């Protein structure tokens, strides 16, 4: 009897759970940051302007979709001359390639509040497959998604010429993001 009661209770709850879908990204509570290494020393940077689309239902994580458009000229490397340099031809070449884009292709549920988002990342006209582990924390009608993954800047020819070597600025760049999204 108890089991049946449970099952019934669950069955009535489920449709409600399905209705929870986080789609309204709140840009002011979201962030795209990165960490790069300069002669072995980690330095933080961020992008001030980006937009993100999200469809995430905790009950059906595998059906989730996420995408990012990052305005590369809004980069903050921590120094004004760095921002200028990185927008230039050798790095992002923002005149020719103003945005970086991430589009999810599939989402795996890893149990608990962990997911793994596979997707395609395009920067400076080059596309790479990336896998992004992320966690989500739901609070009322908003959910916060945090994730981090590492790219190699050389895969996107970010930093050419004198910067192509990795002795001063390392190849690995960690991208960290946070998306805060509300239900409709």
């Amino acid at each position, binding site marked *: 009897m108890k089991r049946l009661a449970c099952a019934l209770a669950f069955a009535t709850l489920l449709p409600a759970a399905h209705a929870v879908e986080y789609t309204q990204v709140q840009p002011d509570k979201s962030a795209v940051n990165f960490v790069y290494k*300069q*002669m*072995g*020393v*980690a*330095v*933080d940077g961020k992008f001030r302007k980006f937009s993100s689309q999200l469809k995430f239902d905790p009950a059906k994580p595998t059906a989730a979709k996420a995408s990012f458009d990052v305005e590369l000229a809004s980069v903050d490397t*921590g*120094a004004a*001359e*760095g921002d*200028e*340099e990185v927008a230039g031809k050798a790095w992002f070449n923002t005149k020719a390639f103003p945005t970086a884009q991430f589009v999810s292709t599939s989402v795996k549920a890893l149990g608990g509040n962990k997911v793994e988002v596979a997707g395609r990342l395009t920067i400076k006209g080059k596309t790479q497959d990336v896998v992004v582990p992320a966690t989500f924390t739901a609070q009322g009608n908003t959910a916060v998604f945090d994730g981090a993954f590492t790219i190699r800047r050389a895969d996107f020819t970010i930093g050419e010429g*004198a*910067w192509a*070597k990795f*002795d*001063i*600025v390392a190849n690995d760049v960690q991208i960290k993001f946070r998306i805060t999204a509300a239900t409709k």
Partner: protein
Amino acid sequence: MATQHYTSTAKALHWLMAILLFGLLALGFYMHDLPLSPDKLKLYTWHKWAGVSAFLLVGFRLLWRFTHRPPALPGSMPKFMQFAAHAGHLALYALMLAIPLSGWLMSSAKGFQTVWFGVLPIPDLLEKNKEVGDLLQTVHMSLNLLFVAVLVGHIGAALKHHFIDKDDILIRMAPRHSKEK
């Protein structure tokens, strides 16, 4: 009267730091105006490593100074000159401490941590903050200009003592010939 020399350690510290600080000053003024390049970042990193080294040497030097009394100034020096000499040395020590400190704090505020020789991370005392970073950059620059001014006085005074007053002020900081004594 036999020349009263500084201790060999005090001399070694003095001349080692003279070379190091002139190198740091020259590098600091030179690298500041370079266009951004991998070499510029490398020079900044070296400057920071050398600055931390200078700070540690000053610390050791002060310890040595407090435990080893330097030879007294010649009695022939007027009182106000003696006072000026002490004040000048005090200013040099104060600046040798304040300049690396301001550089370190500036690095912290600008978000570029100092890692001594790429091995020993020096903690960031300040949060990353652009305004504070820019302010500390001005402070670091001003202190260095002041340091250059005091150094000109220091070197000028040493030369005046040697060539005009013809006393042993410069000689007693010079490397000793082992034959004397």
